[in-house]
């Protein structure tokens, strides 16, 4: 095993500029490979989290994105404080850290020439949580799709409702779904893309009621948390529990699509819409 050891040693001495560890399988991979594949591990196919802007970059035709409602940002309707401080401060910090005003970026653009309204959640912004501002932006995106009869695509990435906004965050579930309902009535396609993670109040609202639900491989998609369930039922859960693959098997997603093929498949699906 001399070869292996020396190779391993060589790796460890190599600069962090070149190598990184996969967040999932922990294997060493080239940073360049990771970036070129848009954060998919070449060893284990782990689909890493993307920022909203990275996602928009690989989804829409270059230069076609026009952002909408970018000025919407969190208020603090409950004057919420917890053990670690105030919601106001947390929100300000998230805005500073991400350069975003809310947990979702919305706008319009084209996919291989096909116009779409797009909403992309960003997990970095308070765990992609669903707030009044996020709900409002998603509703407006749906309304835009409704008014112009353009298909709507939403990329979800969220830990659930933003509890710092109390009951108002819960109401965003009803609000966004009311927007989706109007699209149904007008037969305007809504494609939901579920990415890692899509849980809680987001999974229980717009994310799971796409006309077509697509998931990225290996994403966590859940209503209740695994720990809560294990405490309730006092029983071990299957290994693939609450993954994309599990949801496919149970009938809740139409297909699992690799990140590298997502744009092409979205285009292919949209091309069947002929009204």
């Amino acid at each position, binding site marked *: 095993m001399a070869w292996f050891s020396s190779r391993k040693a060589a790796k460890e001495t190599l600069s962090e500029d070149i190598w990184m560890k996969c967040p999932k399988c922990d294997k060493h991979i080239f940073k360049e490979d990771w970036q070129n594949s848009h954060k998919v591990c070449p060893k284990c196919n782990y689909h890493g989290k993307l920022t909203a802007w990275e996602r928009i970059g690989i989804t829409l035709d270059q230069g076609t994105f026009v952002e909408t*409602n970018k*000025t*919407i*940002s*969190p*208020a603090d*309707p*409950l004057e*919420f*404080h*917890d*053990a*670690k401080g105030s919601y106001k401060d947390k929100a300000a910090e998230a805005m500073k850290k991400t350069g975003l005003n809310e947990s979702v970026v919305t706008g319009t653009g084209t996919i291989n020439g096909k116009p779409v309204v797009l909403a992309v959640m960003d997990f970095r912004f308070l765990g992609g949580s669903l*707030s*009044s*501002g996020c*709900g409002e932006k998603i*509703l407006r995106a749906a309304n835009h799709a409704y008014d112009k009869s353009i298909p709507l695509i939403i990329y979800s990435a969220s830990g659930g*409702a933003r*509890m710092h*906004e*109390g*009951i*108002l*965050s*819960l*109401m965003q*579930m*009803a*609000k966004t*779904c*009311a*927007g*989706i*309902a*109007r699209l*149904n*009535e007008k037969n305007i396609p809504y494609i939901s893309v579920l990415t890692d993670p899509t849980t*809680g*109040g987001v*999974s*229980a*609202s*717009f*994310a*799971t*009621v796409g006309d077509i639900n697509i998931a990225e491989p290996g994403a966590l998609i*859940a*209503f*209740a*948390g695994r720990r*809560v*369930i294990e405490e*309730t*039922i006092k*029983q071990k859960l299957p290994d693939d*529990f609450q993954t994309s693959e599990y949801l496919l098997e*149970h*009938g*809740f997603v139409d297909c699992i699509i690799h990140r590298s093929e997502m744009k092409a498949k979205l285009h292919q699906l949209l091309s069947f819409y002929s009204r």
Partner: protein
Amino acid sequence: MSTIKELEKKLLVMSKTPELFDAEIRAIKSEIVSLQSGPKTRTAWETVQLARHKDRPTFKDYAFGMFTDFIELHGDRRFSDDLAICGGFARLDGEPVMVIGHDKGKTIEEKGDRRFGCALPDGYRKAMRLMRLAEQFNVPIITLIDTQGAYPGLEGEERGQAEAIARNLVEMAQITVPIICTVVGEGGSGGALGIGVGDKVMMLSNSVYSVISPEGCAGILWRDNKFAPDAAEALKPLAESLLKLKVVDRVIPEPAGGAHADHAGTFAALKSAILEELRPLKKIVPVKLTKKRFDKFSAMGIYNE
């Protein structure tokens, strides 16, 4: 957060054309009453306890005590009959309605069968089936919300708890008959909202409605369930707060001592409130009804722009 004075001014303006502001006037009156009752002596956490009181009326108490002619209908036509949500045709003061609600059960055995009112996806799908039946029969829908939340189990995830609730949110937005929802005890998260999208949303005065249980919130944000009273305070789950946030249209005062101490008084108060709200709703044509419901939920939320 208006003062009584401001509210009274609004009321004066609206009273000149009451036919336009019917609902608003009633909401403002409720708000004034709640403000007049002065500084609350009861904490949020104490109200949570009250909302969970074991002697509060449960679904069957309402079904047989407040309504007449209740005929229970079972099943989701897909997988099972989840008893945690109960429903059927009934009459309220002679008016035909479909009544649907979480059923916590009364006996130990019933509570077990009903998972204390925590429903599975099958329960939400059954509720939607009954709502579509109400639409077909052209009768209004009355929902009674009383749950800690949807049941967090293997079965629920397997059969799509998230999808079942989400589907109800979409479909309740489309239902063409009036829907009046009342939180009569615990309004717990998505499990409550799953039958909670209505033209009017009301709360009994000692009920609570929250995005997460105080215990759950404390566990996450305080890293310890024992801070539940602090979380309860922070989440503002009480009826007055929801009225101010415009999530709830009306708060129905419970009889002195609370609903648990006076079922008959509670039924009378809730019944007259539902009938009062129902009358104008029944006059609205379907397409306008769903448009108004859409506008109502569209307006929910507070953000900067």
